[in-house]
C-alpha cells in the first residue's frame, strides 16, 4: 500500500498577494512527496488553521512579503493551540518587517510568537525541505 502523504498548508497571509515564492515552494514540496494545500494570496490567518484542521496537516508554511506579518500573525500560535493544532509545525518567511533592521531581530521576534523556523526573503528551497524533514522526524511524523 502506498504510504499516506503528509499534508502541508501554504499561503501568503493577510493582505499580501505576492504568491510567486510560495507557489514555487509548494511545487517543490509536492515534487518531494508532500501533499500541499495551497491557499495562495490574501489568506486570513484563521483560514490556515481551518484548512490544517480539516486535512490533519503536519505543518503550516506562511509567507509574508509586505512587512505587516507581525500584525497578521499576532497570536497565531495561540490560535493553533486553541484549535487543537499544538503539534503542527509553524514556519514563516519573507520581509517580515518594514525598514532597515537586523534579520536576527526578526528571527527572535517570530520565534517568540511561536514559529519553529523563521526565514529571510531569500532562502534555498532545499534548506526548507531539509529543515522540514528534520523537524518532522523529531516529532516522529516522518
Amino acid at each position, binding site marked *: 500500500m502506498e504510504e499516506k502523504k503528509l499534508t502541508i498548508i501554504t499561503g501568503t497571509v493577510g*493582505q*499580501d498577494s505576492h504568491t510567486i515564492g510560495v507557489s514555487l515552494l509548494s511545487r517543490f514540496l509536492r515534487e518531494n512527496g508532500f501533499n500541499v494545500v495551497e491557499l495562495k494570496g*490574501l489568506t486570513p490567518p484563521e483560514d490556515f488553521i481551518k*484548512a490544517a484542521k*480539516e*486535512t*490533519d*496537516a503536519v505543518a503550516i508554511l506562511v509567507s509574508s512579503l*509586505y*512587512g505587516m506579518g507581525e500584525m497578521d500573525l499576532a497570536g497565531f500560535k495561540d490560535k493553533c493551540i486553541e484549535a487543537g493544532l499544538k503539534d503542527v509545525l509553524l514556519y514563516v518567511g519573507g520581509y517580515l518587517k518594514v525598514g532597515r533592521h537586523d534579520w536576527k531581530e526578526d528571527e527572535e521576534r517570530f520565534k517568540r510568537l511561536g514559529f519553529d523556523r523563521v526565514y529571510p526573503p531569500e532562502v534555498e528551497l532545499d534548506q526548507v525541505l531539509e529543515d522540514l524533514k528534520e523537524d518532522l522526524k523529531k516529532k516522529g511524523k516522518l
Partner: protein
Amino acid sequence: MKEVKFLVDLGSTFTKVVVVDLASEKVICRVQGPSTVDTDVMIGLREAIQKAKSEAGITSIDREDALASSSAAGGLRMVCIGLVPDLSLKAGTEAALGAGAKLVGSYSYELTKDEMAEIEAISPEVILLAGGTDGGNESVVLHNAKMLASSKINAVIVVACNKGAQDRVRSILENGGKKVKLAKNVMPEIGKIEVSSCREAIRDVFVKNIVRAKGIERVKEVVKEVLMPTPQAVLNAAKLLSEGVNGEEGLGELMVVDVGGATTDVHSIAEGKVIQDAIYGDLLPEPVVKRTVEGDLGVRHNIDTLLKIGREKGFLDGHDLDVAQSLTRINKLPETPEERCLDMKLARIATQVAVERHVGRIEDWYGPAGRMIVQRGKDLRGINSLIGTGGPIVFAQDPRTVLEGALFDRKRPNLLKPESPRLYLDGDYILYAIGILANLEPEKALRIAKKYLKEI
C-alpha cells in the same frame, strides 16, 4: 391513455395535480385541494385526483401513470454534521439543500453529549455525516460516528466523509444498529466541493426509507412512486431548463425564485465565476446548482418578519399593517383588492431579501498594494433568465413587480444580483411537475416547460 401523466405534489398546505399529455406535449389541466396530511393523506389526494380526472375528462387512470413529489409532513428533515464550519459542514449543507432537504440542525467538530441529546430531540429523518478531506482528519468523524452509534436516533445516516475513514465509520454505525448509506466525500480536498453523489444518496434514502417513515406510503395505492422532495423537483426543472438535453436547447444560466407560505427558495444554475482581478474570499466555492432556503421569509407562516422588514425598508405603511391582520391565517388566500395588493408587496419583499442572501457580494479592500476587490459567493449579474414560481408570485396582480425585487440595484452595486435577465412566469404552476417528468421524459419535459413559461 398511456401518454397522459398525473404529476402530484403532496404539499404541506395544498395537494396539487398537473395533468400532461406527452403525445401532444400539452398541459391538460392543473388542480389543487387542501392537504390532509394531519388526518389521512389519502383523503386530500383522492379528492385532488378526482378533480383532475373530471377536469381532464378522463374516467380512469392507471397507478403507473401517476407520480409524486412530496413536501408533506414537514418536508425532508435533515441534520448536517461536519468538522470545520466553513469547510466540510458548509459543503454538507450545500449538498443537503440541493437534495431538497429542510435543514433542522447543523453541528461541527466533536459532538458533545448535550448536542447528541439535542439531535435525538430534533429526531431528523436523515443525518449527513461529513468531515475531513480525503487523507485528512479522521479522528473527529470517528468520534462522531461513535456518538451516533450509541445514540437513540433512528435516522438514516448518509456518510460522506474522508474516504480513508469511511469503512470504519460504516462499521461503527452498523454495529450500533444504524442504517447507513455511503456517498463520496462531499469535500474531497480544500477548495473542492462534490455534491452530486451526496444528493443522489439522499434522494435514494428519501424514496426507499422516508416515504414509509412519514406514514405516507399508502399514497402508493394511487401513485406509482414518490420520487423526490418537492424542492428537489423544482431544482431538477431549473437544471433541465438551464442546461437543455439531447440537442433540445436550454435557456442558459438562470435563477428560479419560489415564494411560498412557509419559506422562500432561490435556485441558481450558474457558474457565478469570480470577477476578473477579484480575489475569492471564501475557502469553498459554491456549487453551480445551488439552492438556498429562507425559513423566515414565507408570506404566511412568517408574515411578521416580512412586515418588520417592509416597515424598516419603507416598502409598507401603517395601513398595510392593518390589512395584514386578516392575512395571518396560514391557509388564507387574499380576497379583497387591498389584501391582494399587500400580498404582492410581501412577495416582493420576500423575493428581494431571499435573492440578496443567495447571490454573492464584493467588498473593496485597501492594502499596501492599493485597492483590491474581494468576492464571496456567486456573481449572478450575467444570467440570462429569471423565473418566478410559487403562489404569491404566480397569482400576484403584477408578477413583474414582484420579480423585479430580484434584480440588480444600482444603489447597492456590491450585491451581485442579475442585471438584465429575461423575466418568466411559471404561470401554470407546473415547474415541480416538470422536475418529476425530467427523470422520465427529459426532452418532452423541457419542451413543455419552454412552451408554458410566460415571458413577462
